[in-house]
């Protein structure tokens, strides 16, 4: 087991730079999730840690050892691929044993480790099957099993759930969480799904265009987003943004201060409360999505800004009516209009 230290890690393809100097510390045993929109560099960063991409600049250290020039298989990391990447011509058992065999591990030890891992993942019954006779979920377990048997210092997951259907995704997500609790090994997990990030992570790393936007616990990111990008990326439905001209007359009472003309205010849909009194924002109701458990109310301000409020029950007014919302001052987020930085 080991932590990781990334210092000024850069990656370029020819003249195009895609990672612009990433600094990151990962504690031993931590579950870290890299999250961001597609093309943000999260997979590239993971692959650089894995040893599948060359590191163009900076250093990656696993434990105390710099691994820039160390071969992938010697770094003590194991990777689970999005497409499972099982060897189609080998049985499940052989798939899991292959890495150990390459390392010339004692056959008895291989057998013990494969069976232990199969036990943990409940795939003992499939050991003699070939991957093509397994379902997607079973294949993903085998891929995880292949990583476990190597007893790595760090597990790397590259969007491991995106090829599974919704129900299986939730189940496998839980299993990965349990696995982490059981093995207490450092895990790095890449996803574009913020729900996976929020539920699994000890620490989330939000990336955009090859740069880290913010690092923090899920709750930190939710409550104290460092900038408007993180604020919009974390939380579903995403945070609403308003300029001073979009707000209602009672805004400053609600927010506890005046909003500057160079500022945006971010209000999460779940924090907006319908009110007849002094409102922070008012909107014409366009559409209601009633999910039973809660309702998503889509509205438009007089200035034409669309926003969403998440309410317990659908509003009892007709479509097209204007509804006012209040918010607790501590739940409002202020951002600089041009830089997006939190104020």
């Amino acid at each position, binding site marked *: 087991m080991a932590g990781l230290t990334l210092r000024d890690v850069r990656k370029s393809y020819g003249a195009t730079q895609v990672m612009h100097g990433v600094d990151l510390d990962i504690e031993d045993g931590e579950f870290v999730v890299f999250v961001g929109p597609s093309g943000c560099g999260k997979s590239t960063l993971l692959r650089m840690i894995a040893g599948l991409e060359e590191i163009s600049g900076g250093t990656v250290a696993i434990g105390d050892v710099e691994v820039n020039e160390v071969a*992938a298989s010697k770094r003590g990391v*194991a990777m689970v691929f999005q497409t499972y*990447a*099982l*060897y*189609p011509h080998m049985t499940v058992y052989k798939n899991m044993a*292959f890495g150990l065999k*390459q*390392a010339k591990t004692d056959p008895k030890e291989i057998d013990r480790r494969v069976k232990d891992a199969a036990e943990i993942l409940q795939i003992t019954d499939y050991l003699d099957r070939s991957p093509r006779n397994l379902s997607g979920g079973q294949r993903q377990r085998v891929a995880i099993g*292949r990583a476990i048997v190597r007893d790595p210092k760090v597990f790397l997951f590259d969007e491991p759930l995106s090829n599974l259907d919704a129900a299986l995704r939730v189940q496998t997500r839980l299993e990965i969480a349990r696995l982490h609790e059981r093995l207490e090994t450092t895990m790095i997990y890449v996803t574009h799904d913020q729900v996976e990030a929020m539920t699994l992570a000890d620490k989330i790393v939000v990336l955009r265009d090859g740069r880290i936007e913010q690092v923090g616990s899920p709750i930190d990111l939710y409550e104290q987003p460092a900038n408007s990008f993180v604020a919009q990326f974390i939380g579903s439905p995403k945070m609403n943004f308003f300029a001073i001209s979009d707000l209602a007359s009672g805004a400053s009472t609600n927010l506890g201060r005046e909003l500057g003309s160079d500022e945006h205010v971010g209000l999460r849909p779940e924090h907006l409360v319908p009110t007849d009194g002094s409102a922070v924002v008012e909107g014409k109701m366009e559409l209601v999505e009633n999910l039973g458990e809660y309702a998503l109310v889509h509205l438009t301000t007089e200035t034409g800004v669309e926003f969403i409020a998440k309410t317990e029950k659908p509003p009892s007014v007709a479509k097209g009516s204007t509804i006012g919302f209040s918010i607790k001052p501590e739940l409002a987020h202020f951002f600089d209009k041009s830089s997006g930085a939190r104020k």
Partner: protein
Amino acid sequence: MAAVTERSRLSDFMWPALAWIVALVFFFPIFWLVFTSFKTDADAVKPEHLFFFTPTLENYTNMTENYDYWRFATNSVITSTFATLFALAVGVPCAYAMAFNPSKHTKDILMWMLSTKMLPAAAVLYPMTFLTKNFLGIFDTHFLVILVLCLINLPIAIWMLFTYFKEIPKEIIEASKMDGVTTWGEIKDILIPLAWGGVASTALLTFIFCWNEAYWTVRLTTVDAATLSKLIEGNRAPEGLFFGRLAAVSTAAVGPIVVLGWFCQKQLVQGLTFGAVK
């Protein structure tokens, strides 16, 4: 609905019939070759004996006893086998490198390799003969035939292998890297088993091309390394038209490769259409 059924009934009949006709047209020369090989040289040119004649094995006994068929056949087997093996030994690593670690010049290299097939063989006949005969002294040796057969088939072999290897998901190769295989292990344990159909059909096709090659094998050999192509060539009417004998020699030359192709038919078709259907 009725129209649909009728049309499909018509095509049910038409397509197989058409397929049979085409197959028979293609098969006819081979049939005629075998048929003629059982005629005497005299019968072979007489119109009244076109279909009715007394079959004889004379041509075949003559061929094995007087024309040393087995020596030519052995040379064909040796040169084709080794040329195929060498082509694979060079082609597999080469195609592997280009499929999984392409550089920006990979496409150019592939095109360049193909362009060598565009050079007319006759254009280099003189330098090749001069070089091998007077300079290197390897004229009419197995080594030379194997080398030439290997080199002229290498571009096709590499192209084929490259196409098959491209079909293998990159992640599987990456997973094996994470598992710590050596490059050789990667080729042996992952690549070849996964592209087995492709490797087999490449080998088979290369072997067939080597076996059938006639331009260089005829011109760069005299006795020692002469292959079956040379045997056919040698029986080509220097003293008149001996169609019976020529037919027997040709039958005995193409026979083994037809039989081999027949047995590997499934493998060959599967291999050749592998990229197309996916």
